[in-house]
């Protein structure tokens, strides 16, 4: 390009002297600030009530600008930690990755441009809805489905089709390696679920082992707080999953199925090494455990790992309680139960079966022979239903029936005596266990099935899991939900059906259980047998009179202090159903707590 002739020619540029400047003058920076772009990554705001305290923002932060601060005053709630992020603007690079990964959808960036302060401490702050200047600003950068950094959709396990109903084949198939890996990669390892799990299981830690392919380590993590790994990997009520932070914006991580993946896929030698990793040297002390359900097993395992001599008394022929005689085979295969109990036995626990407290052995004897006694007797009796006709011999009870069915599955007895047209009363998970077991037995015996169900609650408020209701329907259960049983219709000693009335309300004005019915809407549901599954209870007859007077009972449970110890009887502990009501993982938790307390008690003696 040719050079201009004159040195002065560039002076043309002076014409711009009279034009509007493109820059903002200093005085206008605060008075008339320029409007930032719609997706400007300005300063952080955090809706504190939506924030889960998961700390994921702090994990992704490239500059370590986010510290999680504990707020002791925040109430404890499931699905949330009492921590909130604080930001160091001396470090932040304003990348917005924290916003894009926020599990609670609480963190955003505003359109603010300027923060000026002579005080360095003011560069470090905990944003709430109003951010660093405590002033409402329009939102700038927001997460959208493109910038999303979480994986919100669950990798589903395969289920058996409806043909499953003609056998006791396990319904839910396990994860393949690829699927387990994919599912484990959805976890942000926040530990919010741990807080909610009754047993405080190290969930993110064991999910991590799936991602790292180190399953033996996974077994160790699981056994740290739960020796019923196989059982809980299949039928745990998974309270953790409802708390999982991913469920705020997507599907919860399949925590239970990942646990199942670990227990199903660890080679046996590594499994055993992991399960027995915590067994220590023998120590002096003998403990009796009454009942070999979840709480008893858990208590026995942990005491045994601490080196105590532990005898478990079981009234049935096989140890396991509800996991051996309750849960149906299609959810909880015998193999899983056996594996859990084998590990507990290998940890040194001694089982004494066919021995019932109060009949074959007394509590006084146990007190004499042992340093401490743990009661994990469970709710092992069915609650009766006092309606006309319920004394008929064709009226069966859930617990007895499920036990018979399991024994039949195990080849220990003949098929239970079931008729081809039955009705189940109850709407909880146990009622579904009974009904769906009946379908399978009927299919086997008659080649067809006819099982009706009646429950006081209508479908929306049924206590059973949604999954049970849907799968039961697929298998052909005939529902009469919202109908209360009035009488069992019996002619010449033979059951003809169940008389039910439409329920208007279950509780009265004062909140007491007192159902009212619609007299216009009643019917007889035909059936030849009636199965009652309206709840379970414990039998406390083994307590002597003095103990009965000293022990506080409420709603069929006993009152103990936090670690399971009875106030009046420091040598006596309890856990499981009779403390917290029926739930396997609560049983495991209370058993573990009691084991620690028994250890402390024996040491202090």
């Amino acid at each position: 390009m040719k050079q201009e002739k004159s040195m002065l020619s560039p002076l043309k540029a002076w014409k711009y002297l009279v034009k509007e400047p493109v820059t903002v003058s200093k005085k206008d920076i605060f008075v008339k600030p320029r409007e930032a772009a719609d997706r400007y990554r300005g300063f952080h705001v955090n809706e504190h009530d939506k924030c889960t305290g998961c700390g994921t923002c702090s994990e992704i932060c490239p500059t370590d600008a986010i510290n999680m601060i504990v707020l002791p005053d925040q109430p404890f709630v499931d699905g949330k930690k009492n921590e909130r992020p604080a930001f160091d603007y001396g470090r932040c690079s304003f990348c917005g990755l924290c916003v894009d990964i926020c599990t609670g959808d609480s963190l955003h960036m505003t359109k603010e441009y300027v923060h000026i302060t002579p005080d360095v401490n003011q560069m470090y702050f905990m944003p709430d809805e109003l951010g660093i200047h405590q002033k409402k600003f329009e939102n700038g950068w927001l997460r959208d489905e493109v910038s999303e950094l979480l994986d919100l959709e669950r990798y589903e396990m395969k289920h058996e089709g409806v043909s499953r109903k003609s056998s006791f084949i396990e319904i839910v198939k396990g994860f393949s390696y690829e699927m387990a890996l994919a599912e484990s990669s959805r976890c942000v390892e926040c530990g919010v679920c741990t807080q909610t799990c009754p047993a405080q299981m190290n969930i993110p830690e064991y999910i991590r082992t799936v991602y790292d392919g180190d399953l033996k380590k996974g077994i160790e993590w699981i056994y740290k707080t739960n020796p019923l790994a196989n059982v809980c990997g299949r039928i745990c009520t998974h309270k953790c999953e409802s708390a999982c932070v991913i469920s705020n914006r997507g599907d919860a991580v399949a925590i239970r199925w990942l646990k199942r993946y670990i227990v199903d896929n660890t080679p046996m030698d590594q499994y055993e090494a992991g399960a027995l990793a915590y067994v220590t040297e023998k120590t002096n002390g003998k403990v009796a455990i009454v009942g070999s359900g979840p709480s008893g097993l858990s208590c026995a395992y942990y005491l045994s790992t601490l080196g105590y001599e532990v005898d478990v008394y079981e009234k049935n022929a096989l140890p396991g309680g509800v996991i051996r005689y309750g849960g149906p085979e299609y959810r909880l295969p015998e193999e899983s139960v056996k594996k859990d109990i084998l590990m507990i036995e290998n940890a040194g626990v001694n089982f004494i079966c066919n021995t019932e407290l109060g009949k074959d052995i007394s509590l006084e004897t146990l007190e004499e022979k042992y340093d401490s006694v743990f009661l994990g007797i469970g709710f092992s009796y069915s609650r009766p239903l006092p309606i006309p006709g319920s004394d008929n011999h064709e009226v069966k009870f859930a617990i007895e029936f499920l036990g018979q069915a399991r024994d039949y599955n195990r080849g220990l007895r003949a098929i239970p005596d079931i008729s081809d047209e039955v009705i189940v009363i109850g709407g909880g998970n146990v009622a579904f266990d009974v009904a769906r077991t009946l379908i399978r037995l009927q299919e086997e015996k008659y080649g067809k099935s006819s099982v009706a169900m009646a429950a006081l609650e209508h479908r929306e408020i049924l206590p059973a899991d949604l999954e049970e209701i849907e799968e039961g329907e697929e298998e052909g259960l005939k529902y009469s939900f919202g109908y209360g049983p009035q009488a069992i219709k019996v002619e010449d000693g033979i059951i003809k059906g169940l008389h039910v009335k439409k329920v208007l309300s279950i509780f009265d004005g004062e909140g007491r259980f007192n159902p009212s019915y619609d007299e216009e809407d009643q019917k007889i549901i035909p059936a030849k047998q009636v199965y009652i599954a309206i709840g379970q209870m414990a039998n406390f007859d083994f307590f002597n009179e003095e103990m009965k007077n000293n022990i506080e009972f409420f709603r069929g449970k006993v009152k103990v202090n936090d670690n399971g110890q009875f106030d009046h009887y420091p040598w006596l502990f309890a856990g499981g159903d009779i403390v917290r009501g029926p739930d396997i993982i609560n049983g495991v938790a209370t058993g573990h707590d009691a084991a620690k307390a028994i250890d402390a008690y024996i040491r202090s003696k």
Partner: protein
Amino acid sequence: MEVNKLKEVKLFLGPQHPGMHGNYSVHMYVDGDIIKKARPMPGMLHRGFEKLMERKLWMSNMAIIPRICVIEPDINEMVYAMGVEALAGVEVPEKATWIRMMILEMARVATHLFALGGIGGPTGLYTSMYWAVAERDLILDLFEKLTGARVYHIFIVPGGVRKDLPEGFKTQLGTYLESLEKKLPEYQELLLKHPIIHTRSKDNILLPAEVVHELGVTGIGMRSATGKAYDLRKVKPYAFYDQVEFEVPTATYSDALTRIHLKFQEIQQSIRILKQIIEKMPDEGPVKAPIGTGNALKLRVPAGMVYTAVESTRGEYGYFIVSNGKEKPYRIAVRGASYPQGLLGIERYLPGHRIDDAPLWMDTMGVCSPEIDR
């Protein structure tokens, strides 16, 4: 002998930060106003990026790497994303690829403008500095609209880009390009034809073809000296550079003035490319493809190694990425485009020039200290 010793004076260029050339330090031994010996002193901007990247998650690194080149940060995002995509075997959606090219070319214009403005400092022609910086700011406004940030955009990510185009963006960019085109003749007058620039840059700061080959200079330096249109966008096209028409300006005599000219012509070519991008980019379609499963904390890039490179304003800019299949990179090495001329070049070829030509030397040779220091 004593007298001789006194004759030589040691002068420091940098490392204070008065403009573009001061954050790099050169110790100059001068005799009168002629540089006799030059010792480049890199490291003033060393932030250990390569090491740092080994300790950060694949995704978190996105926020760190743009800082390896302050004025043209997007090339870092692009080569990093290209490398991860190559290792993971991921195909980038069409629209995302166009958006990426748009970003890269906008950045090229902004960076060349900045460099042209930068000539104002060492030559005393400050108007060019003000103009170019203000002009670049208008591009930053567009970047702010598109990416949410003005300088460090952190917008190109493995798999695509972080968000779709905002409403009306193509039109806004189109309007801006027209205004820039209108303004270009004024820049010509102000800069390229200016007697001061001619006096200072014509037949000065020569870069012969042998030196290009000796040092391994790429980019404008190479093209201005050898006449070869060696531009990665042409010779090894990435994104959709094979689907747009543009020319690669070259010359066979490389003095500072030629290189300034080439920069200017590249701005014109980038405008041409940007206009085609606006034309060709589909309105609909995904802008990001998933890389593996899981959340960003768990992202693992399959084991392997890969070298990816793009044509930056200063030449070939590349990353050598090694992954061992874990959540963090095993090793990443950065090829800063100005490494050859910025280190060895200064040492060998700055001597012989006048003191006041040193910043001009660095500007027109395309020395960018952060990419040398990393």
